[in-house]
């Protein structure tokens, strides 16, 4: 396997990981597991960015990963804040119970 094919293998791996995360986001109802699935998808995108940076011989692919990391951290912080706020009122709520956007 030469370098180009290995790069394509990296892209395929991140495509598989992205699809796994997407399916998990659709079928799971526990909000914490859904957050973890979003993390899987963001990591797949990070892997794609780094691979693109290698294929195009450009450092920007790695710089963008930093910004994705920051967005992921913010998303987790706000998402967990929401989970805590909801669970304080309804301890056994899942994603289906929260369709009204109010506690």
């Amino acid at each position, binding site marked *: 396997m030469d370098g*180009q094919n*290995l790069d*394509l*293998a*990296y*892209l*395929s*791996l991140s*495509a*598989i*990981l*992205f*699809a*796994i*995360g*997407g*399916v*998990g986001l*659709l*079928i*799971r*109802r*526990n909000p*914490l*597991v859904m957050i973890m*699935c979003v*993390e899987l998808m963001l*990591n797949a995108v*990070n892997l794609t960015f*780094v*691979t*693109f*940076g*290698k294929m*195009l*011989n*450009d*450092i*920007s692919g*790695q*710089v963008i*990963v*930093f*910004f994705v*990391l*920051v967005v*992921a*951290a*913010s998303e*987790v912080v*706000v998402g967990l*804040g929401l*989970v*805590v*706020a909801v*669970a*304080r*009122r309804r*301890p056994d709520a899942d994603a*289906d119970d929260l369709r009204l956007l109010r506690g």
Partner: protein
Amino acid sequence: MITATTVTTTGTGATDMSVEVAVFAVCAVIVILGGLGVVLSRNPVHSALSLVATLFAIAVLFLNLNAQLLAAVQVIVYTGAIVVLILFVMMLLGIDTDDDLETEPLVTQRLFAVIVGLFLLGAILAVIIIGGNDAVTGAHSVTQALVTDGYQNINQLGRQLFTTYVFALEITAGLLTIAVVGAVVLSRRPKDVQPIPEPESMIDQGDEPLSVTTDEGAH
């Protein structure tokens, strides 16, 4: 073989292709199994541990791609902060009980979800496979060409972050501050904690039932 391994571990660029392929193969298996573990585990704690395995394998893949700083950041930020935060919330709320995965609240929802996922996967893989080596197009080295030395990688990333992307970096700082403030506001304990679905108590209507004292004591 020994020299190739030391080259890879010291981060000065993997020269031997077979080592790179072997590392990729092992990590790819861990990534996929960990991802499936996140989705299919009945217990959320097991999902979080599978997520840790996946994130570690991706960090190794970053090393394999000569992104040494990102590999370290991946381990520190994701496994050190984000997953630990998720586990903390899990333990704090005590919702580490098993989920019921057998019943399907929306009929055929999973079937459609898997179909959508396979369609998505097929679309991306089609682009990659049909496009082949032309799948990624674009100008080479728009900002700066990669250097493959470990120390140079950190140097180069920092230089780019504080020159070309300095405005985005400042916006990022604002985003993090807003997220922290938002989390504090969201998780602040409100003064009138009462479950909303409960009906109004009779105190508002002027009555004073006997259970008022215990009710007040609970607050």
